[in-house]
């Protein structure tokens, strides 16, 4: 399979503190990759580098073979905070990336509106973010991310602010739409379960600054109830 997004030899230090050196992350088309690690390990820094908002000290990031190191605007990421602008309607929020890119407002709103049904947001176009539930806001944020960056999506603790039940639902839902929309996803999380449920491959970021990789192939549909899941979880916990 082709690597749609890849980071090679990434190094980054803030002042004298080395966050990571010589780090490789690869994302194949249609795959989901999880970066798992405790808070403060540099997950978000890595995300900033992948999205081009931050330039690494060394290494390159390529998207479909094109160098996008330090160039924002190609891939977007979604955070735990949904970051929907409170003064815009849900529809306008979702269409914002297109408006920023210079599409006409009418065109952008029409294009964005076309996805509302699919993302389970139909009927909420003209509401303000305040009026939506946490899960719906997260779906709106995801739709905005999708509209901005197309098939490559970075998620930074996407469902961390939701309650446990909603989080499960959102993870299941995400598995469904990522398959249907053929999304390639990098997801950052400190939740081992979430990494195992969502990802085809898990990168574990430990104190050693090296990445451990676990590949998960052909997961059964109720993977989180299998013994293998428990086994992997134990293994990961021992890494961390």
């Amino acid at each position, binding site marked *: 399979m082709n690597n749609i997004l890849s980071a090679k030899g990434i190094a980054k230090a803030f002042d004298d503190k080395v966050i990571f050196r010589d780090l490789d992350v690869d994302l194949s088309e249609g795959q989901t990759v999880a970066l798992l690690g405790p808070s403060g390990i540099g997950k978000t820094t890595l995300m900033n580098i992948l*999205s*081009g*908002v931050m330039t690494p000290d060394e290494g390159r990031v390529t998207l479909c073979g094109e160098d996008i190191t330090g160039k*924002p*605007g190609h*891939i*977007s*990421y979604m*955070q735990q*905070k949904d*970051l929907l*602008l*409170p*003064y*815009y309607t849900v529809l306008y929020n979702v269409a*914002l*990336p297109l408006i*920023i*890119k210079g599409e006409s407002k009418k065109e952008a709103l029409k294009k964005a509106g076309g996805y509302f049904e699919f993302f389970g947001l139909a009927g909420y176009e003209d*509401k*303000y973010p*305040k*009026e939506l539930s946490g899960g719906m806001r997260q779906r709106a944020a995801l739709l905005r991310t999708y509209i*901005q960056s197309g098939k490559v999506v970075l998620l930074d603790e996407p469902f961390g602010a939701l309650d446990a039940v909603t989080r499960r639902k959102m993870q299941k839902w995400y598995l469904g739409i990522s398959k249907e929309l053929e999304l390639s996803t990098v997801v950052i999380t400190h939740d081992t379960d979430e990494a195992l449920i969502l990802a085809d491959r898990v990168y574990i970021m430990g104190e050693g600054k090296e990445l451990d990789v676990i590949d998960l192939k052909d997961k059964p549909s109720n993977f989180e109830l299998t013994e293998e899941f428990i086994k992997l979880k134990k293994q990961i916990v021992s890494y961390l």
Partner: protein
Amino acid sequence: MKRPKSIIDKLLPLGTFAVIIVIWQMLSVTEVVPAFMLPSPVKVVKAFVNDFPVLMEHAGYTLLESAIGMSVSIVIAFFAAVIMDRFILVKKAFYPLLVVTQTVPAIAIAPLLVLWFGFGLSPKIILIVIVCFFPVAVGFLDGFASADPDEIKLLRSMGAGNMQIFRHIKLPYSLPHFFAGLKVSSSYCIVSAVISEWLGGTNGLGVYMTRVRKSYAFDKMFAVIILVSALSLLLMALISLLEKKLMPYKKEERK
């Protein structure tokens, strides 16, 4: 359950107001306070009605000065805030100076302005700008600073430039702060106009006030004072209306 309570909330201050008026009327009628010093509310209303055309003519001038002064204040405040927000050094250099200008009493500089700029519109407008500029500028500045850095980062990741970030993040975030500042300014605005009219000029409520004061027409004095308050209230109501129009999402939040 909610509705009757809100009606009571509205009636309560009106009731207090009515009681005060009644007490005032009684004090005048019973001559506890001599009528020439404290005219009764009925006399004040009569004076207001009798002098209505003259009052309106003067009010027109005062409102014109206020409108120009306010508009100029808002425009200057906006650009000053944008520049100070963009260039942190400018902010550091000028912000303390702005605070100092606020401690200068309007009444003290008004005569100077008359000496420098004459009896026309300009000294009045300048005084209004000096008084009203600051709350609006601070409103804008605080508003720009209140923008969520994560949201700015998000827009950067969309490839947005400074102008777009200003348009989509900073400007909308500044609106509530701007309106808070504007309400403060508006309450100063008419009063500043009146004060500068006291000191010189041929038209305006301040001029009228000086004339009736010199002729000891206390009933007219009260009539014009009430008119000045009413105009300030009207201006504030107008700003609230504009606020609701420009920020429809605020209403939804309250639900």
